């Protein structure tokens, strides 16, 4: 019985350490990518530093600092993550919204649909996801989506002379 709070405390301190360790790992990996990506750049010819030295220097420094952060996270448990705990529903909403955004942009990027055709359903889905699954909200979201899309399309194409997809 007496061990349970200690285990909770242990789990709480391990969770932030995982965040710091993952961040340090990602930074070291990025530094490695930069190091490899600059490997085939020509040596300096017209000036003493060259194109590769600064990215490589910064990558090395960044990897060193990330290593220090990783060691600190292992020794002290790192820092707690930011913000309040997130509910499962909010997290699921965020995931669906991100997926909807990616699909929306991908469809327009692939020229499968135009701006108006893609944006009205996208905004409606977002409005329903964030505002709640009720008929009244769905209708409001649809009207809002149609109005905003058409106004934005008009402003960008007629006022700023920017061709939207």
């Amino acid at each position, binding site marked *: 019985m007496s061990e349970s709070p200690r285990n909770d405390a242990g789990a709480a301190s391990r969770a932030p350490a995982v965040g710091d360790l993952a961040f340090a790992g990602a930074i070291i990996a990025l530094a490695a990518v930069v190091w490899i990506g600059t490997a085939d750049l020509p040596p300096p010819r017209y000036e003493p530093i060259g194109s590769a030295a600064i990215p490589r220097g910064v990558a090395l420094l960044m990897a060193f600092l990330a290593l220090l952060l990783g060691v600190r996270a292992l020794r002290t448990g790192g*820092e707690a*993550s930011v913000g309040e705990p997130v509910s499962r529903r909010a997290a699921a909403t965020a995931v669906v919204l991100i997926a909807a955004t990616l699909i929306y942009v991908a469809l327009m990027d692939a020229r499968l649909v135009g701006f108006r055709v893609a944006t009205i359903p996208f905004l409606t889905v977002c409005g329903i*996801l964030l505002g709640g699954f009720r008929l009244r909200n769905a209708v409001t979201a649809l009207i809002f989506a149609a109005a905003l899309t058409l106004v934005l399309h008009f402003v960008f194409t007629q006022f700023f002379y920017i061709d939207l997809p």
Partner: protein
Amino acid sequence: MFDAFLALAAPWPVFYLIIGTALGIVVGSIPGLTASMLIALTLPLTFSMSPTNAMTLLIGEYVGGISGGLIAATLMRMPGTPASIMTTFDGFPMAQRGAGERALSLGVMASFVGGLISWGFLALLSPPLARLALTFGPWEYFTLVLMALVMLASLSQGSMLKGLIAACLGVLLAMPGIDPSIGQLRLTFGFNDMTGGLSLLPVLIGTFAVSQILKDILTIEKPLPKVTVSRKGVALRWSDIRMHGGNLARSGVIGTWIGILPGIGGNIAAMMAYATARQVSKTPKKFGTGHEPGVVAAETANNASIGGALIPLITMGIPGSVTEAILIGALIIHNLQPGPLLFVTNPEIAYGVIASYLAANVVMVVMMLASISYIAKLMYLPRAYLLTAILLFCVVGTFALNNRFFDVWVMLAFGAIGFALERVKVPLGPFVIGFVLSPIAEEQLRSAAMSSGGDFTAIFTRPFATAFLIVSLVTLVWPFLAARRQAKRATQERQ
């Protein structure tokens, strides 16, 4: 300067000033939306404007955004912007005991006076500082940028180690594309779209707007408390200014000074002014319980920090905070070179920024006193529609930059990066400022190395460059020495 005020009196600048300040106040008053997010989102709309009008709009948004934060901080205990955190300490208790209108009017007055004080410093210090900066060569510029980055990383909130990593990450992510010195392609990994590198605007919009939307979605279920403000109580008297005169002047100077230092920002300015006001007060125990000087100190300092931060921005091209980094981006997008030459090549812009700052403060005080009860209602705009509309503006605004979807993907990626960085407590300030200053730093270092034939000891023949380097080193080492000394003292006390 007089010409700048004259130019500002034309119909379009007045229109942009009013629109910018109004938008800033509205966005600042809505919890979860920030001035930097608004400015980043507005940038694409400024392409078709003259640089003067664009800067007028953005300065109006900045001043309005910081001032608007006071409303939600006072009425809901939710700082509309991070700079208003200290206002919640006394503003909210005042609102709870029925003096919300009084707290708001004091806050508006304090914001205005803070703006006036820092405008005085901005107008007086900027021209001579710019003249001094004109004598700087590449070594001075490189060490100045280095000093700004180191100060930003060490003084920004949270771990210094994470601040330094964030600055390095920002610097590194600005490097893909064409090398600024010899035109060599690097780090493009075979993608043609990467030839021009990562554009500033998608990075800014992603880091500040998209990541903020993600954060807000996670808290969208949280209901906002209902409060009302009557117009009757929102009035100011001359006696109010006399009563708080000393506090206003002191907090204004503290705010301006903190604003000049890179990376500290309005929230720390407000914190320091609040702490000082409490220290010198005869009734320090009243602070935090709804004490008027608390609201005055916090609001004076956070607004004064804007004018302070504009000083290094227009004289040297060094951003003091995230919002200034975005303003630098606005200058670059309009093909203007931020720095001391701005006073020589485009004096209308340099003096225009100074004049706009004063005018935006005047517009802000008039607007807020006249309509604060209505603005308070905007806090309850349905966030479901607000957030989706902002997300759409992010996509369309970024696409409009170059008419290509690559920028939109970059924006979304940086939205995820910004969100992830904040979750692991990595400050975004050093990251974005590193990204903005990286090309300048590299160009200056390489031309300095070229002029000295690769001899890096030449840095020590330049007094300013040496001084900047020493300040950087001291800023870097000092926190470690202080922590070590503290640990030693703690051990001695235990023994």
